[in-house]
Every structure is written in C-alpha cells, then in structure tokens.
C-alpha cells in the first residue's frame, strides 16, 4: 500500500520502483544520493534512522483512509530531504518552517498523525526529540494577569525539540479582547520567532472554528505554511477501523455483530457530525462491547471455549446504545 504519485522517500521505495520498472538503475542511484545516503553509509547511526523512517511510514500507510493526509506527509518529507540536499550542495534553501494547522472533526486521526509526524521529524533530523506535548486551553491560559504567559512558556519549554500540539486551539480566541487566551497566542507567536527551528507548533480543531480563529488572527495565519484537512471517515472506513482495532486486541465480530455495528455507524453518521466522534466513538463502542462480552461469558453456563473468548456477538453492542 505505498504511494504511487510522489517520488520515493525511502531507499526501500526506490528499490520497489526499480523493480516495478518505474525508474532505471541510473535513476535509482541518483535517488539514493538524493535521499541522503551519504550520512547513512559513513556512519551507522543515521542508517538506523533511515530504517525507522520506513517503519513510521509503514505505520502511516496502515492508517485507514486519510489519503490526502498521507500524501501531504510525504510531500513534507520530500521537501525536508531536498532542502537538506540543497544545503549540502550549498544552494539557497527555503527555511524549514513546519508549523501546521490540522482541521477536522474529533476522532479523525489528528493526534495519531501528529505523533507520527513527531517521529518522522526526528528521523529526518529536523527535531532532536520528536515527542508530542498535547495541550488544550486550560493548560495554557491562567487565572490572573501574567499567569498565562508563564503557563504557556512552561508548555513550550516542555515541547522543545518536539511538537507542541494544541487541541481545539480556536478556544484561545474565545472570550474577546479581555480574555487571557490572547496572551497565550502572543506568547506562542513570540516563541515561534525566538525558537524558530527548535519546536513545531500544531494547532488543531474543528474546520469552521479554526478558519474563523485564523481569520481573526492574521499574524498567526501567515506563520503556518502547512494546512492539513482531516475529512470525516465514511461508514466503510469506520467499519474497517473497528475491525482493525478488534484484530489488534485479538477479537473478531460475528456476522450479526458486524451488521449491528454497521447499523450503529450509519446511524451515527446520519446524526450531527459534531456529536458523532468518528473513530473515537467507534473505539468507545468496541471497548463497551468487549466489556459486555466479558459479562456475558462470565454468566454463561458450561464451558467457555477459545472461540467464545474471541467472538463479539451482536448483543454485545447493546440494543439501543
């Protein structure tokens, strides 16, 4: 399941392309060089990193749906690699500004992708640590004058070398001029100037709210060159996600349970998309079903087989839910 449109970003993909007849051996050697094989061969440390980048990409590709997100992430990787190569050849390089806006409903994979991005940036050598500090308004905004800047700076300090991920960032603009949220924004903007290459800021939230938030803070908007939209999953994707979650936990759905779950998902999608939490709601359903299955098995008379332990029945999803 690898990408078909963009240039390969790992040596493994170059080999795949060569085998598929999409590049000639000469081009493959040229690509190897572009991919910064230099560092990889001279010492072994970055070679590990290269292999791990591939691991992260495999993980990214394993996420269901999110086609555009995956493409964009690859574009970012290619951009970073080419800028690095250009600087090696002493060509003019674009500054690596990677602050990003994530727009999408809850449960559409924003946090998951942010975590992967952190690891990707670490493997690319853009961020030394690549960890994710996940915060929301309450972690940044204080209660009295001066408190907010202090709290915000603390979070930024924690995120140094990694990603500061602010969920529902639009809420910082809530409450008008007198709200301390504005102070948090100012502190963030200052940190983005002072510590340009030292951390990546990701602001996430609902599409409409984020648009409004950025419109009302033009200075902020221009500092985020990358925007990634996370569309809602469709029913098919959600069902696939559910089955993947169950498979990881070593459970599986009976035919009836599968139908029941599909029905629940359809009902959820028909309801307001703001209250339906996409993949997160599906995960909650699955966890509930696993608990109910346990109760059912405990109460069951007779022997509980290995098969029973794995199987989720329709009733485990409840009647009404």
């Amino acid at each position, binding site marked *: 399941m690898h990408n078909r449109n963009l240039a390969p970003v790992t040596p493994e993909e170059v080999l795949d392309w*060569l085998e598929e007849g999409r590049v*000639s*051996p*000469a*081009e493959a*050697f*040229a690509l*190897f060089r572009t991919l910064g*094989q230099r560092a990889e061969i*001279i010492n072994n440390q970055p070679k590990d990193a290269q292999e791990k980048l591939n691991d992260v990409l495999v993980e990214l590709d394993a996420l269901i749906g999110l086609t555009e997100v995956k493409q964009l992430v690859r574009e970012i990787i290619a951009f970073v690699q080419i800028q690095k190569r250009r600087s090696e050849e002493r060509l003019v390089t674009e500054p690596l500004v990677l602050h990003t806006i994530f727009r999408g409903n809850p449960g559409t994979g924003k946090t998951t992708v942010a975590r992967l991005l952190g690891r990707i940036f670490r493997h690319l050598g853009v961020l030394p640590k690549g960890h994710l500090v996940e915060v929301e308004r309450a972690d940044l905004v204080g209660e009295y004058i001066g408190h907010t800047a202090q709290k915000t700076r603390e979070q930024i300090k924690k995120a140094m070398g990694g990603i500061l991920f602010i969920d529902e960032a639009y809420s910082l603009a809530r409450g008008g001029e007198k709200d301390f949220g504005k102070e948090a924004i100012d502190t963030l903007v200052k940190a983005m100037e002072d510590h340009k290459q030292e951390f990546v800021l990701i602001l996430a939230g609902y599409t409409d709210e984020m648009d409004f938030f950025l419109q009302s803070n033009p200075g902020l908007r221009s500092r985020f060159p990358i925007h990634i939209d996370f569309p809602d999953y469709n029913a098919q994707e959600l069902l696939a996600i559910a089955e993947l979650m169950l498979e990881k936990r070593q459970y599986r759905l009976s035919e009836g349970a599968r139908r029941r779950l599909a029905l629940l998902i359809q009902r959820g999608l028909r309801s307001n998309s703001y209250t339906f939490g996409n993949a997160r709601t599906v995960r909650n359903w699955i966890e509930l079903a696993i608990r109910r299955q346990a109760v059912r098995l405990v109460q069951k008379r007779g022997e509980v087989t290995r098969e029973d332990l794995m199987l989720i029945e329709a009733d485990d999803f409840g009647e009404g839910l």
Partner: protein
Amino acid sequence: MRACMVIGRANVGKTLFAINFAAYLGVSRLEVEFTTPDGETYRRTLTQKEAVEELTSPEPHHTLGVQRVEIQMPGLKGKKRFALLDTSGLTDGIPEESIIRRAMAQTLAQVRDAAIILHLIDASSVGRHGAVEALGQVDWQVAQFGGMRTGYAILANKMDLPEAGAGLVQIRREFPGHVILPISALTKAGFAEVKQFVWRHL
C-alpha cells in the same frame, strides 16, 4: 560479514573477475551461494575452471541474481574474512523483463550495505568507441554515488586488449578524483592493487 560488491554494466567481465580474484586470493574450490531474483538461495561447489565455464558467457545478463563467495584473505597481519558478491549487469534504461529488473533491485539493495564497491568498466570498449559511446548513464551515476563514500574503486577491465590503454586515459579523464585501478580479469594483471585496496577498506 563485510561485503565486497562487484558491479557494472552487462558484459564488462564482472563474473570472470570475481572467479579469478577469488582464485587469486587462494580459493581453489568456490563455494558459491546463489540467490535468484526471486529470493531463493542454493549452494554449489565449483572448481575455478567449472565456474568460468558455467557462470561466464559472452551473452549479456548471464548472471541473474547475486553470486556470493566467502573468502579468507591472507595479509601481512592475520586474515580477514569477507563476502565477495558478483551481481547482475546494470542497464541504462528500464529493462523490459521483470526478472532483470528484480535482479537489479537486488543488486542495489546490497550496494547500500556493502563495505566495498568495485565498479567494473570495459576499458577496451572505451578505447574503441570513446567514453560517451561506451559508458552509460548508469556508470556516471554509480561513480557519483561511490564518490560519497569510502571503499569505492573503478576497475578499468580488459587491459589485455590493445585499445584498453587509450580507454584508461579516457576513463581517468572522465572520473577525476576516484580510485581507478587498471586490471585484466582474464590475465589477473593488477590484482595485487585490487587486493591491497580491498584489504585497506575491510
């Protein structure tokens, strides 16, 4: 085990070089591990004569996949073990046959991990046709790739042929800054220098 790879375009004499170089290093019976483009491996033991007869051919792409021989190289101080890998010829364009493409992907996969890359070029052909005609895009790309690392040498092969001397001059002009060793895979001329180079980079 550290690997020494023999790469180059088709029909530059990679397999003959690998066999005779192994023999030069004192391997009389070659225990060859073959890896087919499909990833299957099998082993055979061949004498030098049998190997030359079976594994080399004037037809291009006689070697498909990777042929690996483990060698203990005696030096002034002790011995060094390494694997000598003979690979299938690289083409300039995209080969039509999928099996050749797979074989080349295999070669490139190994190149990434190899300690030493010996890049064979047919010096006689360069002397006869000129560098532009005789060399391919892939030779320049391999040289640029090799230039970024240690353990890369160009072996100007077929020095036993009359036009090769002129070819060597051209190769030296085309690839400045690289280690270029003139050899003859057939007569084993220049093998001492290759041995020295390999020893130094293991």
